[in-house]
Each structure stands twice: as C-alpha cells, then as structure tokens.
C-alpha cells in the first residue's frame, strides 16, 4: 500500500477542537473515511472533532467532496462544519 503525504486543514470548531489549524500527515488511508478513522484513533481531541460526521463537511484539494472520496493524488484535505457565508 502506498503511503501518502497529505496536508490537513481545519476550520471553525473543528480547528478549535483539534487545537491546530493545519498539519501534514503521512498516511496509509485510501479514502477520506479511512483518514478520519485513522485520525480518530490517534487522540481524544480528534475523536471529539470527528464524533459526528453528519455535522462535518470535507473539501479535497479545495473542492467539496463526499466522505468516500479517494485520496489518490490528493495534496490537501480540509474539514469544517457546514458553511455560514452571506
């Protein structure tokens, strides 16, 4: 399985719960969902941030994506709550 280096960015309360706004991770995860499982297993603060996936949105290389999206060739994954612009 090929290891990926992925930049992770967090916004709003996801950033606050995890305690950092970005980090780079070396991972075996092949999809966003697998990446989330890996993060949740790391530490309590990640488990807390990813507790309820329905309250989260994900962008893969700056495009809104589904949680089953592949990480193949991906450089940046962002996690955040539903957007509140306007």
């Amino acid at each position, binding site marked *: 399985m090929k290891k990926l280096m992925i930049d992770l960015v967090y916004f709003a309360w996801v950033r606050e719960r995890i305690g950092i706004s970005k980090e780079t991770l070396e991972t075996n995860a092949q999809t966003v969902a697998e990446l989330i499982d890996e993060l949740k297993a790391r530490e309590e603060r990640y488990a807390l941030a990813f507790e309820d996936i329905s309250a989260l949105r994900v962008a893969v290389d700056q495009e809104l994506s589904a949680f089953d999206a592949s990480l193949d060739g991906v450089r940046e994954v962002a996690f955040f709550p539903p957007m*509140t612009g306007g």
Partner: protein
Amino acid sequence: MSVRVQSEPFDPGKELSQFSRLVSGAGAIVTFTGVVRDEDGTLNHMMIEHYPAMTGPAIEAIEKEAIGRWNLSASLVIHRYGALSPGDQIMMVATASRHRAHAFAAAEFLMDYLKSRAPFWKKEFTADGAYWVTAKDEDEDALKRW
C-alpha cells in the same frame, strides 16, 4: 465577473457607482448588501473565518454558474472576513442585465449559494459567550429551488 474577499470595509455606494460605470449598456442593476445584525443589542462583535485557498475559486464557480443561467452583463461579489461589529457591511452582490428579472434572480441565486457553499464561518461574541453560527436547514433548502 469579479470576486473580492477582503478584511477591509467597503463603501456600497462607491461600489455601486463603479459597477454602474462598467455596465453602461445594462438596463437593470440589482445590488444586495448584507449587514451585521445587533441581535437586539446582544451581539458584541463577530469573527468571520474563511479558507483562503478555496474561497476565491468557490465564489468564482458560483458566479460562473449564475452567468450560465441568466443573461448577465456583469456581476460582482465582495465578502469580508475578520472582525466585524453590528452595523458593518459583511458582503455585497451586484448583478447587471438587460432586464430586471435576470438581475434579481441571479442576485438571489448568488446569495443562496454564498450562504452555504462559500467557505466562511461566523463566530458571534456576545455577553453570554462566543458561539459558532450554525447553518440552517432552510439555507440548504433554499438551494433546491434553483
């Protein structure tokens, strides 16, 4: 088509004059300006966070979609981030078209999509504490009409 994401305040009157000069052939110009509510005096200030690498491209995609659906001669979106106080302008949308129906519809479309598809998050600071503004179901439902 133009997008500006900025922390600095803007003057809606000046923006409208400038926009009007650019679209002299258009018969209709619609603008919408969003202003920070004071929430009956309880709001102290608001912080708007955004995702710089995504914000511009996401708004441009929304504008492009609007231009594809309606006959627009120009459009403008300004959206602020950072600290804002009650009464401050948060954002502005302007659309220009030959006829008003297109300008109105496109402005509403832009507003609906900016609400839930542009990567901004608002945190309100009140006397009781600080709270992230939660997205409303009706904001998501508003997209279905398009």
